[in-house]
């Protein structure tokens, strides 16, 4: 598994059913109906976030928040260690003969470093987890899926009644149905 793993590419899937919607409410209804029928939805592509879809298709809750906490903790430890090393261990600065130890004046730098590590650590994890990388080729099922159309992609598995799935999609407002075979789409 990796960010450039070709097996993950939609172009290399053996057979998929693709439904296109233009209405958000109908898309949500269709998704619920398909899940209710026990169909495993590979993914749904929308031009804007449609709330609740990820819960309907049973996507696992993101662990970004935990990653953010761990990155923040790392940043905090790094900055505290850095200041302690420079300010206490390597070159203790004599300010009015006061003992050289933690002072509130460390806090701004510790805070900024913590925020920086949290943001960039989380950002890196976000890009990695979503397989987003500068220059990566996109896998679009429809040219308008980033504009005004919504796409449901279903991977055909053994035992799946394709005509039932297509009927469910059609009766729930799909404006177009397609079949995807090794990167080649045909309208049904």
């Amino acid at each position, binding site marked *: 598994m990796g960010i450039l793993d070709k097996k993950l590419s939609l172009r290399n899937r053996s057979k998929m059913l693709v439904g296109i919607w233009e209405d958000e409410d109908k898309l949500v209804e269709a998704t619920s109906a398909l899940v209710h029928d026990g169909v495993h939805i590979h993914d749904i592509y*929308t031009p804007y976030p*449609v709330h609740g879809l990820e819960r309907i298709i049973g996507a696992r809750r993101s662990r970004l928040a935990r990653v953010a906490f761990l990155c923040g903790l790392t940043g905090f430890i790094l900055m505290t260690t850095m200041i302690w090393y*420079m300010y206490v261990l390597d070159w203790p600065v004599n300010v009015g003969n006061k003992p050289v130890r933690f002072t509130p004046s460390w806090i701004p730098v510790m805070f*900024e470093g913590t*925020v920086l590590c949290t943001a*960039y650590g989380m950002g890196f994890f976000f890009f990695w987890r979503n397989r987003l990388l500068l220059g990566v080729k996109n896998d*679009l099922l429809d040219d308008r899926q*980033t*504009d005004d159309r919504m796409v449901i992609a279903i991977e055909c598995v053994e035992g799946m009644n394709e005509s039932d799935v297509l009927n469910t999609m059609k009766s729930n407002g799909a404006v177009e149905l397609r079949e995807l075979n090794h990167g080649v789409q045909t309208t049904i």
Partner: protein
Amino acid sequence: MIHDSLIRERLVTGDKTAADVTRDIARPILNQPTKSWKIGFTLSLIFLGIFGISLFNTIWTGIGVWNINKTVMWGWDITNFVFWVGIGHAGTLISAVLLLFRQKWRMSINRSAEAMTIFAVVCAAMFPVFHMGRVWVGYWALPLPNAFGSLWVNFNSPLLWDVFAISTYFSVSLLFWYIGLIPDIATIRDKVKTKTAKFWYGFFSMGWTGSTRTWARYELISLILAGLSTPLVLSVHTIVSTDFATSIVPGWHTTIFPPYFVAGAIFSGFGMVATLLVVARKVMNYENYITIGHLEAMTKIIMVTGSIVGIAYLTEFFIAWYSGVEYEQYAFINRATGPYWWAYWSMMSCNLLAPQVFWFKWARTTPWFIFIMSIVVNVGMWFERFVIIVTSLHRDYLPSSWVMYSGSLTEIGLFLGTFGIFFTCFFLFAKYMPVINMAEVKSILRNRE
């Protein structure tokens, strides 16, 4: 239960569909530049040229070409630094704080405000960097081991906190802005026709497809980044205020500075957002997206923050008297009645009095008037920083050191030149990137509750 609201006014008017949003907002990117864009861009380049000449003069001759001296060692440079940093704060406020408060009206204006943040911070950074004089050793401000032994940076100094704060703020704002841009870059990628444009938008869209799982993570990262940016934005201007407040200069040594600076930053930032958006909505035909409702919401924030700043001015005066410290008292009397009285009263009238006009609905809903007022706010906030810095420094404890100060031609050129940097970047951004967040706006077309 989700349903279309019958009561709330629509945030996007004109019965737009998702396809309309893409078409309207991507129009400047997909078409040739308009005449007004070309004129604006040329003007910005002229100002950029002024910046180049002034900077060359500063580096080639040295900062002796500035009029700062041993008494007024901070003049136009740090005034301009604080001015631009302040402007840079509204972007994060709109993106982060309003997101946390679920204020959906932010969606039409957050993109340009975030862009404004980044360009303003670049302009701000110019001043302390070139004030160092020997800019080629600017990296000494970083905690690096150096060639002269293990002498490290001073963690007790607010100037060092500034280095960390501004660079963190810039980096995090850039990440926030870019993550928000990816879905829209993908939309443009799928609309452009030329091979070069397809390549570049494809490159920066990182293979975005709009997968449901990606959207879920996108919304989560936006929320966490907003939660991080909110204390960050407060910390950055608090730290900028401690550049002054930790000193013993009369007029600077006050505990009110952090909240007063933060309110001032939001005030000036919204002033600049209003300046840009009142023009942009007209020139780019975005009146259905940046509606009068948006302008009204911004003017209300301007009025509230202007009043907070006004109360801070009055509190400072009261505390100076109440403290019984004669140096402090003189600093404030000198501000209001001394040789820089004109700057003080410009500040008071632009920042405290002028925004009170927004109590009237007409003032809040008339774009040309909002534009004029936004300029007044910008002028007022520049004067605020000038008053704080110059009036406090030019007469402090030792009367034999008292001097007058006014900016030299090079200092004025540098300030005007930063407008060149700012607007050149903004015009390029408006030409090549969607000025309004298309994906987010599409999600609020139906006014859901």
